């Protein structure tokens, strides 16, 4: 055991992107057969380390060794792939190619004359996916798969190289509970076969569930490495954030006579949800829980005006905004944080000020003109209120870290002093500290008399809700008041009725 060289060891690794230092003399050592967790806040440098360890990028300084030998040249991709397989944080699925081809990209089965034998490729793909019980036609385009299947495709491909060392960079971020369980069963199988893992996640309970050792990165540096069992959760968080974790204060619920700010009745949208009715009162926080594809996101998007229900009504603060019109919803008093901040949340090359005030053009100046000073004033107060780390309101949002980008999106949702705040996955991919902060803000907003609707499958998001409505296959199947146990909610989301 002692004589065994580590599967991989990186020492003194430094990597800069322009003026950003992504890794500063970072180090990691992963021993054979271990499942090693790497945690840290957004932008701590985890994914950068992954790209160094998989040979996608050369470090500016530092040494990487595999089993005691120096890493291969960057150009020698085959050598890298024999040593390490990886599920990258950013999707490496090519949507225009079929499932089968994605699985065997650049290692097609070739017959005489070096031509690809598509039949064999498809058969092998079928076999591979069967072992994962992923039920898809391997001839469909990968782009037509849902997010979860795509993630499994990614995982199945990475694990199919037969490498003895596998890196998983936030593999669970896109998966729901059942899928995560399936993935973990598979990982445990491989662990028994002696495969070594480097596992990255913002879900700390997962670290405790399947990992042996944990390394914490903070601000581009290695902070500590420890056996998982020796490191209580609070200490782990402290190591990540460089301070003690704060505890959320309990919040009073809304008063009984608080007016209704959202009334959804009999809403249906073909293919997404059916006959959904509920209401949210001023000062109340209501959760919409459900698995991926349950329809919860679509319900929330309907309220925000991104979709129009085919039947039923949505009433916001006593008025019925035109269905399917975001501007109408805005006027009715809805503030909105969309599902995916990269896709719908912000315009990357526009400044914080412009992004933050996109929903309130009428407050920036007369006759559609923008008064730059007034806009920047708005933005400065946002930066202050939400503690956005930025040198000034003119910085493009692309220059912010993930957590801060999400804060900008939240700031915009709050910009028009909403009567009703609609949040979809508000803390997805956000580290613990930022998460606490954002959720604290949500509570503050509720305290001040706005209604809040949170559509999420993240238990931490739902914990602060006064009520959680569980959506299963397009219908609201349960209403669970505050104070639930995790397993109770998870079971409801999976469609399992614990009460029989």
């Amino acid at each position, binding site marked *: 055991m002692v004589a065994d060289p580590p599967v991989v060891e990186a020492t003194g690794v430094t990597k800069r992107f322009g003026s950003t230092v992504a890794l500063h003399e970072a180090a990691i050592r992963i021993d054979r057969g271990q499942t090693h967790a790497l945690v840290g806040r957004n932008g701590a440098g985890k994914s950068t380390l992954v790209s160094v360890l998989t040979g996608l990028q050369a470090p500016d300084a530092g040494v990487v060794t595999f089993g005691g030998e120096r890493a291969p040249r960057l150009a020698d991709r085959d050598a890298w792939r024999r040593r390490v397989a990886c599920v990258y944080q950013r999707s490496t699925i090519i949507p225009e190619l079929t499932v089968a081809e994605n699985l065997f990209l650049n290692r097609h089965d070739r017959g005489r004359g070096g031509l690809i034998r598509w039949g064999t490729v498809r058969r092998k793909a079928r076999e591979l996916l069967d072992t994962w019980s992923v039920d898809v036609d391997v001839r469909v385009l990968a782009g037509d798969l849902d997010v979860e299947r795509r993630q499994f495709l990614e995982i199945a491909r990475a694990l199919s190289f037969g490498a003895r060392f596998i890196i998983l960079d936030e593999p669970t971020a896109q998966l729901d509970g059942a899928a995560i369980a399936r993935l973990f069963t598979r990982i445990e199988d491989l662990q028994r076969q002696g495969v070594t893992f480097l596992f990255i996640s913002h879900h700390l309970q997962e670290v405790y569930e399947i990992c042996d050792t944990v390394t914490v990165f903070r601000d581009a540096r290695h902070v500590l490495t420890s056996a998982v069992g020796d490191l209580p959760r609070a200490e782990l968080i402290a190591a990540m954030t*460089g301070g003690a974790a704060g505890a959320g204060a309990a919040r009073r619920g809304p008063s009984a006579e608080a007016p209704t700010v959202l009334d959804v009745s009999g809403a249906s949208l073909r293919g997404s949800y059916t006959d959904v009715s509920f209401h949210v009162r001023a000062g109340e926080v209501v959760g919409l829980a459900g698995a991926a594809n349950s329809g919860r996101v679509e319900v929330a998007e309907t309220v925000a005006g991104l979709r129009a229900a085919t039947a039923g009504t949505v009433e916001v603060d006593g008025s019925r905004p035109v269905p399917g019109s975001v501007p109408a919803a805005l006027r009715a008093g809805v503030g909105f944080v*969309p599902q995916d901040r990269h896709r719908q949340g912000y315009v990357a090359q526009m400044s914080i000020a412009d992004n933050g005030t996109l929903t309130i053009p009428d407050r920036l100046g007369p006759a559609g003109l923008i008064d730059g000073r007034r806009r920047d004033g708005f933005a400065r107060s946002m930066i202050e209120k939400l503690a956005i780390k930025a040198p000034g309101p003119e910085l493009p949002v692309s220059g912010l870290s993930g957590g801060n980008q999400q804060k900008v999106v939240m700031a*915009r949702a709050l910009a028009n002093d909403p009567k009703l705040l609609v949040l979809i996955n508000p803390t997805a991919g956000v580290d613990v500290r930022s998460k606490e902060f954002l959720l604290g803000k949500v509570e503050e907003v509720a305290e001040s008399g706005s209604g809040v609707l949170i559509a999420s499958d993240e238990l931490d998001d739902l914990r602060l809700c006064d009520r959680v409505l569980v959506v299963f296959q397009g219908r609201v199947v349960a209403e669970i008041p505050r104070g639930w146990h995790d397993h109770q909610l998870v079971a409801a989301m999976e469609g399992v009725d614990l009460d029989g």
Partner: protein
Amino acid sequence: MVETRTAPGTSSPSATGGGRRLALARLRDLALIPAIIVIAIVGQFVSPVFLRGDNLVNVLQTMSEIAVLVLAQTLVLVVKKMDLSLESTVGLAPGVAAWLTVPVGAGHGLGLLPGGWSVPVTLAVGVLVGVVNALFIIRFGLNGFIVTLGMLIVLRGVLTGISGGQTFFRLPGSMLYLGTAQWLGVPASVWVCLLLFAAGIVVLGFTSFGRSLYAIGGNVDAAKAAGIRTDRVLWIVIVTASVLAALAGLMLSGRLASVASAQGDGYIFTVFAAAVIGGISLNGGKGTVFGAFTGILLLFMIQNVLTLAGVPAQWIGALNGAIILIALALSRVTGGKVQD
């Protein structure tokens, strides 16, 4: 920048880093100014005429119509679309007006409408072309490049069809006005061009409508989620661009007192080159109207210098192209990755 990271919890970008990025973004707007100055100096060496007022007015006048096209294309590019058909609209819009208003005897028009109708007809054709483009692109979701490529061919063909390939002469007075009048001693078309650019700078830089163009070009889903009526804005942009092209055509026909059936042919290459050299991104959401103006100004100054220098005709094309490529490469160096 390492030191800014040493204090835990203050991993914010250093103010200087942010400031530098900001300064670069502003500089990009002015990226061509050095090149313009260099050309001006070279021009003055080549011929003492170059910096004389009347020559500069010449440059402005001859570029005015194409500059309006550049403005139109800039709007379209900012929302991440493309409109190749602008070059055909430049010919077709005044062509239809001439066809309908030029009397049967004098030219070979139909003489169906009195001359006063020519300007409204020109602009109406612009609107119509824009509406057709918008229908295909926004309503039917077809790719803008290829729709407008098809339209370019169709519209050019329609102009050849109605004109029988001949040039319309003897245009009504109202069509000539913009191309021939002088306001305060400077050609009206120069004023129109400068005023349109000024308006463009104000609208794109200082109004929420203009900002919504950048938002759409940068991330259309985000723009939609932020309550911008993206389809409506796109309609307005595409139709406006066509109307601007029709206006450019009107100015050009006025200046040449005729509508040739090939009017506008090949302009689109120059228009794209000017816009991109001027810092407009083909990927949407980036670049300013002022930058676009410097782009087209640079190109026309170069042409003017080449003409004054009496460069052998056969080498003008190669020289012009080489200078464009160099300007492009330089604008990348001075202004960051301008072209993406």
